[in-house]
C-alpha cells in the first residue's frame, strides 16, 4: 500500500532570541502556529489533530508540557501527540505529523515544536549529575569536539573549514528575519580569531541557545489543491542507533548512512548533489556540515570539506546548505529540527524570501540528536511525487 500524498502548506516560526521574555510557553508556540495557519489560510478550527515536539522536559521544568498547553494550542477536543527523540525531535515530530496524513487518518494536521531554553540552563538540564557517574567535565561542545577531531584526522581536512561554514551560515542569517544571531561582521578570519572553547571547536563555530518555536500545517492531496505552492513530501525517514557501542563509527554513523540511503531511494534521487537544490542540515557545530555532507552522500567519504571549501554550499553554490542561517544562527533545540524541515519546505514553495534559492524544486530537511544517533530527514518538492 502506498502512502497518501501529503504536503506542507503552512510554515511559521518565531523570532528566535536568547530570551523571549515577552511571551509564555503558550505564547511562544502560538506565535509560530498563528504564522503557519495564516500562511495556510486556515484557522485552528480547521485543524484535525496537533502534534507537539520538544526536547527534554527538564529544560522548561514541566513534565509533558503539552498537557497544560493543550487548550492554548487549540488542541482541546482534538487528538494530541507528543514526540521526544532528543535533538532530532523537530524532524521526528514533522514526520509523525505527516504520517497522520499519509496514513489517511487526518486531512489537516498542525505540528509545533518549541524550546524555551531561557527558563533554565541547557548545560544544567543536559548534564544533571548522577551518582557514581563521572561528572561531565567538558560541557555540551565537549561531547562532540573529540569526534570533530576524529573527522579532521580521518579526512585530513585543513583546520579552517569549520570557520568557512560558520561565516557562511552567519552571513546567511542576515537574510533571515527570524534568525537569532545577527552579526554582519562575521568572516572566516573573525571566526578563526574567536576563542577556542573545546579545541578544535571555536566559540563562533558553536550554536547559540535560543527560545523559539516552529509550526507546520501538513495536509492531504485534496486540501493541498487549494494551496498555490504546496511543498510535497517526497520521502521521510527515521533511524536510530546506540549512543555508544564497541567500534561504533561516531563520525559517520551507520544510522545516518542508512537513513540517507533509504531517503534518496524513496524520493527517487540517485545523485543528491545534482538533484537537491537546497539542503537544511542540522549543523550545531560548524564541522558537522562537511561531516554530514559525506554521510548524506553529497560528497565522497573524506571529501565533504572540499565541497564546503569550494564554496559549493554557499547560497549561490552547487548545493546551498543552510540558507536560513541554520542551527548555527538559531537553536531552540526542540524546534531546531522542524526549522530545518520547514525551511526546506519554504525553499520549494518559493517562499524563503531573501534567502530563497532561485528555482529550488527539491530540498532536504535534516535533523539529528543524542550522541549522533537519532536521525530524521525528509525531502520535499514543488511537484507532486510520481511514485
Amino acid at each position: 500500500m502506498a502512502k497518501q500524498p501529503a504536503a506542507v502548506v503552512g510554515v511559521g516560526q518565531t523570532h528566535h532570541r536568547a530570551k523571549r521574555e515577552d511571551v509564555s510557553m503558550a505564547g511562544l508556540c502560538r506565535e509560530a502556529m498563528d504564522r503557519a495557519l495564516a500562511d495556510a489560510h486556515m484557522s485552528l478550527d480547521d485543524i484535525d489533530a496537533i502534534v507537539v515536539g520538544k526536547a527534554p522536559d527538564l529544560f522548561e521544568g514541566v513534565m509533558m508540557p503539552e498537557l497544560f498547553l493543550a487548550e492554548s494550542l487549540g488542541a482541546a477536543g482534538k487528538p494530541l501527540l507528543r514526540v521526544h527523540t532528543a535533538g532530532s525531535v523537530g524532524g521526528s515530530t514533522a514526520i509523525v505529523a505527516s504520517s497522520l496524513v499519509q496514513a489517511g487518518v487526518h486531512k489537516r494536521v498542525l505540528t509545533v515544536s518549541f524550546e524555551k531554553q531561557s527558563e533554565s540552563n541547557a548545560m544544567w538540564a543536559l548534564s544533571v549529575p548522577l551518582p557514581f557517574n563521572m561528572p561531565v567535565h567538558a560541557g555540551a561542545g565537549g561531547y562532540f569536539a573529540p569526534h570533530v577531531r576524529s573527522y579532521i584526522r580521518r579526512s585530513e581536512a585543513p583546520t579552517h573549514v569549520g570557520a568557512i561554514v560558520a561565516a557562511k551560515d552567519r552571513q546567511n542569517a542576515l537574510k533571515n528575519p527570524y534568525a537569532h544571531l545577527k552579526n554582519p561582521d562575521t568572516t572566516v578570519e573573525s571566526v578563526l580569531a574567536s576563542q577556542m572553547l573545546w579545541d578544535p571547536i571555536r566559540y563562533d563555530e558553536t550554536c547559540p541557545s535560543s527560545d523559539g518555536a516552529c509550526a507546520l500545517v501538513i495536509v492531504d492531496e485534496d486540501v493541498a489543491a487549494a494551496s498555490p505552492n504546496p511543498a510535497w513530501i517526497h520521502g521521510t525517514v527515521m533511524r536510530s542507533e546506540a549512543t555508544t557501542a564497541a567500534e561504533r563509527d561516531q563520525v559517520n554513523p551507520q544510522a545516518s548512512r542508512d537513513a540517507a540511503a533509504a531517503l534518496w531511494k524513496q524520493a527517487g534521487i540517485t545523485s543528491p548533489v545534482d538533484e537537491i537544490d537546497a539542503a537544511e542540515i542540522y549543523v550545531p557545530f560548524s564541522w558537522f556540515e562537511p561531516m554530514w555532507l559525506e554521510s548524506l552522500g553529497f560528497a565522497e567519504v573524506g571529501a565533504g570539506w572540499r565541497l564546503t571549501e569550494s564554496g559549493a554550499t554557499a547560497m549561490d553554490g552547487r548545493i546551498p546548505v543552510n540558507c536560513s542561517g541554520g542551527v548555527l544562527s538559531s537553536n531552540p533545540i526542540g524546534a531546531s529540527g522542524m526549522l530545518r524541515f520547514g525551511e526546506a519546505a519554504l525553499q520549494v514553495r518559493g517562499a524563503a524570501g531573501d534567502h530563497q534559492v532561485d528555482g529550488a524544486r527539491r530540498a532536504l530537511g535534516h535533523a539529528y540528536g543524542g550522541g549522533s544517533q537519532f536521525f530524521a530527514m525528509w525531502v520535499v518538492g514543488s511537484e507532486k511525487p510520481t511514485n
Partner: protein
Amino acid sequence: MTRSLSAPVTVAFDYTRSTGPVLGRFLTGLRDGRVIGGRTSEGKVVVPPPEFDPVTHDPVAEFVEVAPTGTVASWTWVPEPVKDQPFDRPFAFVLVTLDGADVPMLHALDVSSVGEVSTGMRVQVRWAEERVGSITDIACFEPATDGGFETGASAPSSTIDPVTGVIVPVSLDYLYAASPEESAFYRGLNEGRIVGQRCPTCQKVYVPPRSACPTDGTPTAEEVEVSQTGTITTFCIVNVPFLGQKITPPYVSAYVLLDGADIAVLHLILGVPAAEVRMGMRVKAVWKPREEWTYSLENIDHFEPTGDPDADYDAYKHHL
C-alpha cells in the same frame, strides 16, 4: 544486598518563567492584592484567566477583578503533605469559586481538621505577608470571617511595573540506582580494579558492562578485568570555564581505549601540557588515594602518559 548500587540525587533548578501578558496581568494583580479573572468569549469569568480563549483561540483581553471571597466547590484533605505544598501539616486542597467568577480555582485551605471543611462553605483569601507576583501571594484560603473581608490591596491595581516573570523552584528527590551490570563496575572501582564484561553474542568487552549490548541486545556477562593502560583515541582541549568545573582550564578530556576493552571511556588527561596530547598517545590510570575511593569512576583521578611510543593510527581508527 540489593543487586543495584543506589544513592540519593536531587534534581533542582529555579526556573525563570516569563508569563506573557495574560498570566502577567493575573500575577500583577496578586502582587497588588487583587484577584483578576479573564472574561471568555462565552462571557464566563475565569480565574486564573486562560491565556487563550477556549472557543475563539484569541488571546484573552478582557480582565475583571473578582472578590477575594468565595465558596468551596470541592475539597479534599491532605493528611500527608509532600514537600513544598502550602503547609507541612495536614490541610485541605479546595476548588473555590470566587465571588464574581463563574468557575472555581485551585488553592489550599487552612483549617486544622477535616471536620472544618465542607462543600459550600464560605472562604476568603489570606494574603501572604510579602507579595511578589506569584500564586503563592495567596498564602491560602481561610474560613470567611463575619462582616466582610480584609482586602489585601495596599495600592491601586496598576499596569505600572507589571509582572512579566516568575521564579518557580523545582526540586525533586530521587533514589538513583545503577543497573546491576554498572554496579559490578563501580564495585570493582571501589577495589581498585577496572572491570568490564564480555557480550556473549559479539564477544566485545564493554567497560562499563551493559544491561544490553547495544549491538545485540543481550546483557554482557563474563567478567573481564581490563588493563589500567590504554590509548587515547580522540580528545578535546577544554578551554571554557563553566559552572561546577573542578579543574582550571585548559585541560584535556579524552576517550581512552583501555587494553583489553572494545570501547573507550571518557576521562581526564593530566601530567602533560594540553597542547602535547596526541591521538594514539599511551596513557595509564592514576588513582586517588585509597581512602578517597568510593563506587565511582572518579576513583581514577586522571590518566597520564606512560612515555611509551604512540599507538599506530590503524590500531585504533575503528574506535573513532
